[in-house]
């Protein structure tokens, strides 16, 4: 897993690549927590380079969404690969996260 955070005017974007599982999810959580700790509650997650995500990654997303919504912000997803979208759908997560085809579109929505 590779993770980078980019700062925009109104939000931050997390670019996550590779595989998120129980082994790497703590790092993913840490990146999301680091944003929230700056009191930024609008986060776009660019998943275009993501190959795999297990429920460990879903839980990290859910925890971040919870914190952000509490603070009148939101976590949105961008460029979610098909297999991952299907798994998110099975888990009932597609209703909890707005999803955009393009990362900049996601940033623009926040």
């Amino acid at each position, binding site marked *: 897993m590779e993770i980078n955070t980019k700062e925009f005017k109104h939000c931050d974007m997390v670019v996550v690549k590779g595989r998120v*599982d*129980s*082994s790497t999810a703590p790092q993913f959580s840490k990146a999301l927590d680091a944003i929230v700790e700056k009191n930024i509650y609008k986060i776009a997650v660019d998943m275009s380079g993501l190959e*795999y995500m*297990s429920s460990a990654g879903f839980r990290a997303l*859910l925890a971040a969404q919870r914190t952000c919504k509490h603070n009148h912000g939101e976590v949105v997803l961008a460029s979610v690969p098909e*297999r991952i979208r299907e*798994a998110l759908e*099975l*888990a009932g997560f597609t209703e909890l996260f707005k999803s955009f085809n393009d990362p900049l579109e996601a940033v623009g929505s926040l």
Partner: protein
Amino acid sequence: MQEFYYKKSIDRRPLQVPHEAAFHCIMQTLTFSTTFDILDDIRTFVGEQAREAGFNPKDVYSIQLAADEAASNVIEHAYDGKPNEKFEVSCEFRTDRLIVTLLDHGKAFDPSQVEEPDLKANLLDRKIGGLGIYLMRKLMDEVRYESTQTGNLLTLVKRKG
């Protein structure tokens, strides 16, 4: 690095299926240590077996995800995160289905006893656990668990097509 090796492994049991399916009925077993960094290897192992058995990419992903969720539970719950234990993962293809089994000697942990997450619950009320087990059940055609004197055996079955 990871410690996985081919165990004596090849189990040629009498076949219930005739002719050409015969050579497929070989069980491969790998032993893994109880750390999360072996999950990559488990996904590679079951993914290769599923592809060889002719599953489509969507089903291959489902099988990999289910095996990952099952193994994550073994590491986290059966062994409480103790890193120096071992458990086995086997794959067996029979006629129209792939059977993935996980055998551990840790604490009994029956996924079927875990409450299903309430997917309709409000975001803020939703419980964060139970999701992996829920996914496992959704992704596979059958999930069975038995705890015996020889260990805890979780069986995941995916049918083709």
